[in-house]
């Protein structure tokens, strides 16, 4: 069930009405939202509802156990529970990738034997709900949040449907208090209708119009066979994919935040004008914020962070980005993508020390943006061989431009222009909307929704981050 479908719209309307009808009965409201989230997840493949429930139950039981143990046993239990989460993720997502890599290694060493593949289906959203489960365990271990005795709280934290399948990855310390407060002192009697409207509509526009047309009219064809295109098409497709992935993923996050707001939950933003970053470090403070802060707090800092300085800091940075790359998918292209980001982060730290001058902010933004575009080419190509084809094609300036039409170039420009709007603009529009009488908000939102649906293409490409 995808956010942009009419079936989801009808589903959400029913969930909204029944969820708020249960206001005053917090347990009923929590269980109802769990049921709705499982229906949402089961609509994709009902067999994996057990995996989702199992993940939540294991984390719930482990967190309760953590609360009762001595310091030494707590550490062991935490390691076992985090290991169990990672083992499930590894089995579904990485098993065949490692088998394939191992078989290739065996062949190159002259051994004929091959390990068998298991060919498991990748459950949608597994990377996201596994990371939320680990966040819950670690937050309980650190004392940032108390373990939940009622299982429903953890079930809802792991499965809350607006952010279940593609994030944002919400911390236990951020979401559990809101779940516990349902029906209590916090219980909202008023909702941020304007804010939700702006987030949902802007998310829909970014995904349905910008990301879809850029993908279907340019990026998909060029990246499928880069050797058939000249430098101009390849260059514009690289910019195009950068704008496409931003619109696709930030559009999904915006919709998730808006939908959660209508259910009374506040989810932090996931993107903050990432292409305005003047360094790779700043880029990661603005791009997929929920993942980068998760990696910082649950991987980089436990590895030692920048405490020991020198090469240890650089090692920690590189490992964090390498594993962050691997989190995105079981392929060497993602590993290389993460490794390059790690290398760039290290290089800019070293350069800041040795360069006798400072680069101005505008040149720094341009350099960072182009490094990001380059890494997104690796992120998008199906194999490393195609990446080399892509780079080689950037020298073919004699071949005329055929794939990049004025329409799609205008959309790429529009995507960049929307990205560059002042950060306070969505809130300003939301405040204006909130001043309108409520029937007018419904009418305006309905007309804008109809307009977006009218200009969107008939075939909608899947959300990029669903595959992760």
């Amino acid at each position, binding site marked *: 069930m995808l956010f942009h479908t*009419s*079936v989801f*719209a*009808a589903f959400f*309307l029913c969930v*909204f*009405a029944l969820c*708020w009808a249960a*206001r005053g009965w917090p347990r009923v409201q929590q269980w109802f939202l769990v049921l709705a989230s499982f229906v949402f997840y089961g609509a994709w493949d009902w067999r994996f509802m057990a995996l989702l429930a199992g993940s939540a139950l294991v984390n719930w039981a482990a967190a309760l156990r953590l609360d009762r143990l001595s310091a030494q046993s707590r550490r062991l239990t935490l390691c076992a529970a985090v290991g169990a989460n990672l083992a499930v993720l590894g089995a579904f997502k990485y098993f065949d990738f490692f088998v394939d890599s191992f078989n290739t290694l065996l062949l190159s060493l002259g051994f004929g034997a091959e390990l068998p593949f298991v060919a498991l289906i990748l459950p949608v959203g597994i990377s996201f709900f596994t990371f939320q489960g680990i966040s819950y365990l670690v937050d309980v271990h650190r004392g940032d949040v108390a373990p939940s005795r009622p299982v429903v709280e953890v079930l809802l934290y792991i499965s809350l449907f607006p952010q279940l399948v593609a994030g944002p990855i*919400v*911390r236990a*310390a*951020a979401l559990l208090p809101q779940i516990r407060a349902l029906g209590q002192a916090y219980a*909202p*009697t*008023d*909702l*941020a*209708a*304007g*804010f*939700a409207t702006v987030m949902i509509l802007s998310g829909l526009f970014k995904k349905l119009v910008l990301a879809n*047309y850029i993908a279907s*009219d340019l990026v998909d064809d060029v990246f499928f066979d880069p050797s058939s295109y000249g430098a101009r098409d390849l260059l514009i497709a690289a910019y195009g994919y950068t704008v496409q992935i931003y619109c696709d993923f930030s559009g999904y996050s915006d919709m998730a*935040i808006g939908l959660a*707001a*209508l259910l009374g939950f*506040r989810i*932090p*933003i996931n993107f*903050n004008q990432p292409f305005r970053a003047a360094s790779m470090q700043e880029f990661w403070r603005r791009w997929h*914020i*929920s993942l980068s*802060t998760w990696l910082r*707090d649950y991987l980089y800092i436990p590895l030692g962070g920048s405490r020991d300085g020198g090469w240890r800091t650089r090692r920690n940075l590189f490992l964090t980005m390498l594993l962050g790359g691997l989190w995105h998918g079981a392929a060497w292209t993602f590993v290389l993508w993460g490794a390059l980001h790690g290398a760039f982060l290290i290089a800019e730290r070293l350069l800041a020390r040795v360069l006798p001058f400072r680069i101005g902010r505008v040149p720094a933004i341009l350099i960072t943006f182009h490094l990001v575009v380059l890494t997104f080419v690796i992120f998008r190509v199906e194999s490393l061989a195609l990446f080399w084809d892509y780079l080689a094609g950037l020298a073919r300036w004699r071949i005329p431009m055929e794939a990049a*039409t*004025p*329409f799609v170039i205008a959309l790429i420009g529009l995507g960049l222009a929307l990205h560059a709007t002042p950060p306070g603009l*969505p*809130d300003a529009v*939301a*405040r204006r909307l*909130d*001043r309108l009488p*409520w*029937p007018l*908000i*419904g*009418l305006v*939102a*309905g*007309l804008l*929704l*109809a*307009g977006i*649906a*009218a*200009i969107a*293409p008939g075939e909608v490409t899947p959300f990029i981050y669903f595959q992760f």
Partner: protein
Amino acid sequence: MQAEVERPAQARHSVARVGVALALALAVAFAFNPALPLEWAYDAPLPDGATLWLIEVAQSYRATAERLGLDALNLWAEAQIDALRHR
């Protein structure tokens, strides 16, 4: 922590009013797409008899809505986008 980048949400309208506004927004959006009930009817996991009845109802709704010109926005937008794509 994530709270660093939290947006200030302005809460202004009651849950009931937001619910009605949401229903109104979806009704307005769906009204401009008369083919939608037909898609739902085809996809509904219902017995054959009920599905056939739903398809008939959806077809007659679609015919009426098209006579009233409710699909004009979609047709106009489709033509404009097609012209821009193939310019």
